């Protein structure tokens, strides 16, 4: 429930206590706000009240009948509520008794036992008799898919699972079939879940209050497990997960409701991703290429000695490093420090797709910041219209798609999709324009032309020269021709353009260009396109937002989901050829001096220059090669040695495959990876890397949210965290890096990086922060404002050549 200054407050009495809540709150939520526990089975935060379980019954005094379902009844001013009065308790007891008539009481072998709402309430209400003498009804277990089982005997038909599937996930793969005693949860025509729209997110299992929907692979009891709260490492939404493990093995992912950007909900990768981390195929030993040219297992120490010895020959611009966009901020910071301070080069970038680099170039040219301008949570409060561009958001940034879907359903925000993939969301949105990736820029420009022609354009600075260029270039765009060539009715284009420009008001017939309209947000996943030229789409998206003035306001802006978990953090930390940490230019002499004064004292002074390797006092001050440029530089023999921190695994977003073709030209290649791949086969030294559940640190998600990543299980075999390898190599080369814990690295980062000021582990323990965080104690920035985060002079329309 969102409270704004004009929300009316009401006061009601619960158990003789006065409670003040915003108008529209249900009685159950009011009770929770007052810390009064009311049992409930079918209530789930973020879902519509259903009122099917009937055990949240409370008594409202002075009302005929008196008993109401607190989860569905809205609190009124002056209401007198008794949650534990005699009639309420009696009614709850009766309902529970009826539940248990056919409920299979196989608690000892039920996965839910110990955290079961029905079990808890049965004990709490002292229910122990079955008024019916007949034997319990039972049915066979149903395998809904290879992950999910359905056990009818335990089901209480509270419809939490089907509601979550419909209202949050937005796929409606399961429904309640039949009525009365024949009611059961199932798929259409009894199909296997794998053949339906199911995304295998497992949320139906997560919300089941009893053990009716279960995870087939789970064979523990909840009380046997220890939980670690951490951040998911498989995409850049940055979901909070509760990883439950015992005996050093992760057993399941559980859910911290109403916590984190995901409010407890997860997608398939979040729910089952730990299986990838625990895969038997993980790299467990270091490998070094011997004289015969074969990779042979080696001790980690010996491998690191080889790396340090070899790298001493490549100080300067013959060396390049690629950071893994899935490593923590602290690790990325160390790698760029190593590259700049020890190897003396700015040849550092992230191991990513071409599309990511293209999108970032577009962002730099238009809003001047490589980040999403707004926050995902604004879908719950401010955004009134959502434009989704790019590959299926439901598989690229699933949690973002949940909240887009939620916003469409509950806040009735308009939804326009421009995508080639036909996902369930395409059928639920207001307008879906099917366009292949190379035509999406044309569609966006056509929308911009319609908006401009109808007079909806509201640029931040109408006098800016680039605005003139853009509008004159728009004159060459013919929306009707674009619509015709895509075989989409032109009417859809008009509708989409108006929905975006008016914040969804055009559905109500408000199309006056003069009036004020609520904000519209763009969700762009174009950067996750595996191998395509998306630079034009990236720029067109930004131009559209700037054209309608949807920048620098809450609920507006451009949300860019670019794939790997900490891509944003790696970029913030300066794993970029042109930027030091915190987007300080490498050509800015003050910044370079500042970093040099902190980094160069770490050199071991007794270091003797040999083989051209020696102490570096000055940091390089020309931008290095970006990942795409590196490919050419390797081809021409300019770069001869590389350190690549890979992120190969089955959920990985991949990297530019052209890199693989040129890598054999290198004289020396170190690959640090968690799985063997074509990349590690080309390496001279392979180091086994830890994954996200196996190290401490912090991640920065796509909406600039800095969150704490925690250690849950030990890495397999000899695998170690990236930060440990970098420190060991640097120390062997005469550069002292000794950080016993990543928190010390983050302390240095917050000192050196203006946008990360005041970020520290103790602060992150209390909750996430969104950069720019200006100084210790100041509030973070959910959205980038003009003058704070966004520089007005750097906001300009990017040129698009079509």
């Amino acid at each position, binding site marked *: 429930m969102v409270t704004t200054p004009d929300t009316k407050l009401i006061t009601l009495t619960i158990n003789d206590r006065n409670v003040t809540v915003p108008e529209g709150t249900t009685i159950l939520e009011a009770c929770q706000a007052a810390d009064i526990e009311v049992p409930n089975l079918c209530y789930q935060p973020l879902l519509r009240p259903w009122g099917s379980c009937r055990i949240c019954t409370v008594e409202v005094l002075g009302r005929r009948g008196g008993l109401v379902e607190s989860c569905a009844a809205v609190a009124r001013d002056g209401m007198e509520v008794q949650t534990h009065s005699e009639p309420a308790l009696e009614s709850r007891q009766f309902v529970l008794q009826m539940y248990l008539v056919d409920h299979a009481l*196989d608690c*000892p*072998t039920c996965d839910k036992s110990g955290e079961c709402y029905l079990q808890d309430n049965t004990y709490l209400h002292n229910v122990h008799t079955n008024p019916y003498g007949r034997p319990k009804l039972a049915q066979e*277990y*149903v*395998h809904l898919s290879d992950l999910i*089982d359905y*056990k009818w005997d335990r089901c209480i038909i509270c419809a939490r699972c089907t509601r979550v599937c419909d209202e949050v996930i937005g796929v409606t793969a399961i429904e309640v079939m039949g009525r009365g005693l024949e009611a059961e949860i199932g798929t259409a025509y009894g199909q296997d879940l794998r053949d339906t729209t199911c995304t295998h997110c497992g949320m139906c299992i997560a919300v089941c209050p009893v053990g009716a929907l*279960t995870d*087939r*692979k*789970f*064979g*523990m*009891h909840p*009380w*046997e497990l220890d939980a670690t709260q951490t951040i998911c490492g498989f995409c850049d939404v940055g979901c909070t997960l509760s990883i439950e493990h015992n005996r050093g093995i992760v057993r399941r992912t559980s859910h911290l409701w109403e916590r984190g950007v995901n409010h407890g909900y997860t997608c398939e990768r979040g729910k089952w991703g730990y299986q990838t981390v625990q895969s038997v195929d993980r790299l467990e030993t270091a490998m070094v290429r011997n004289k015969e040219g074969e990779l042979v297992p080696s001790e980690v120490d010996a491998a690191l000695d080889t790396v340090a010895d070899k790298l001493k020959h490549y100080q300067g611009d013959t060396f390049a490093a690629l950071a893994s966009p899935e490593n923590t901020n602290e690790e990325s910071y160390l790698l760029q420090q190593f590259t700049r301070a020890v190897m003396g080069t700015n040849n550092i970038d992230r191991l990513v797709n071409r599309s990511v680099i293209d999108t970032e170039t577009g962002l730099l040219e238009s809003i001047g910041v490589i980040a999403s301008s707004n926050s995902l949570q604004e879908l719950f409060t401010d955004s009134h219209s959502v434009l989704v561009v790019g590959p299926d958001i439901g598989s690229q940034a699933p949690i973002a798609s949940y909240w887009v879907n939620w916003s469409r359903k509950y806040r009735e925000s308009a939804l326009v999709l421009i995508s080639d993939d036909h996902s369930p969301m395409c059928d639920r949105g207001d307008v879906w324009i099917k366009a292949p990736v190379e035509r999406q820029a044309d569609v966006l420009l056509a929308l911009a032309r319609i908006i401009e022609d109808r007079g909806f354009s509201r640029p931040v600075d109408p006098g800016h020269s680039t605005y003139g260029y853009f509008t004159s270039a728009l004159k060459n765009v013919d929306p009707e021709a674009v619509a015709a060539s895509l075989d989409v009715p032109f009417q859809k284009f008009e509708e989409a353009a108006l929905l975006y420009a008016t914040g969804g008001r055009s559905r109500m017939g408000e199309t006056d260009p003069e009036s004020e309209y609520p904000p519209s947000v763009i969700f762009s996943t174009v950067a996750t396109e595996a191998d395509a030229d998306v630079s034009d789409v990236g720029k067109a998206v930004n131009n559209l937002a700037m054209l309608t003035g949807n920048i620098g306001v809450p609920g507006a802006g451009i949300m860019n989901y670019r794939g790997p978990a900490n891509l944003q953090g790696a970029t913030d930390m300066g794993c970029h050829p042109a930027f030091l940490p915190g987007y300080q230019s490498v050509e800015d002499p003050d910044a370079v001096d500042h970093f040099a004064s902190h980094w160069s004292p770490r050199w071991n002074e007794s270091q003797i220059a040999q083989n051209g390797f020696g102490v570096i006092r000055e940091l390089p001050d020309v931008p290095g090669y970006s990942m795409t440029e590196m490919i050419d530089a390797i081809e021409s023999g300019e770069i001869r040695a590389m350190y690549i921190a890979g992120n190969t695994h089955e959920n990985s977003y991949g990297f530019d495959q052209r890199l693989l073709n040129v890598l054999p030209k290198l004289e020396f290649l170190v690959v640090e990876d968690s799985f063997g791949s074509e990349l590690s086969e080309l390496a001279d030294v392979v180091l086994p890397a830890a994954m996200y559940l196996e190290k401490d640190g912090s991640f920065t998600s796509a909406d600039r949210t800095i969150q704490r990543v925690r250690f849950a299980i030990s890495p397999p075999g000899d695998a170690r965290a990236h930060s440990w390898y970098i420190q060991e190599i640097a120390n062997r080369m005469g550069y002292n890096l000794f950080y016993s814990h990543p928190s010390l690295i983050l302390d240095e980062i917050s000192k050196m990086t203006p946008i990360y000021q005041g970020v520290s582990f103790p602060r992150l323990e209390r909750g996430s922060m969104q950069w720019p965080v200006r100084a210790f104690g100041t509030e973070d920035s959910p959205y980038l404002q003009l003058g704070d985060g966004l520089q007005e002079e750097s906001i300009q329309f990017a040129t698009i050549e079509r």
Partner: protein
Amino acid sequence: MFEEVSGFWVTLKRLVRPNQTIQYPEQRRKMPGRFRGLPALRSDPETGEALCVACGLCSRICPTSCLEMHVVPSEEGDRELGEFILRSGRCLFCGMCAQVCPVDAITMSGQYELATQEREGMIFTKTELADYGAQEDTWWGAA
């Protein structure tokens, strides 16, 4: 004379009574039903199927944590016993595991010959325990 005989009275009485000594190990004594020997896994006397449902309550209640249960998901979507390990060196023979079992799959058997020459011999696995318990009745049900 009488004094001599009365001095031998106990000896003479023993002479005519049957022999009480058991020729261990050729002969073994049948322990009473409620004797608490090594905990063992029972199976259904008719079908021979193991009774255990892998709920793990026995390993949970064990005061010395000498029971270790590994649970695997079964084909039917249920739980199944993967490996079951009894570290008898720590066992108190208290019988709580048998009492807590919801399906009476574990019982205290009559097995008392637990001496061994190496420590590994004190560790019993599922198959060994199933052998001991195959024909056993529940120990509290016995007379």
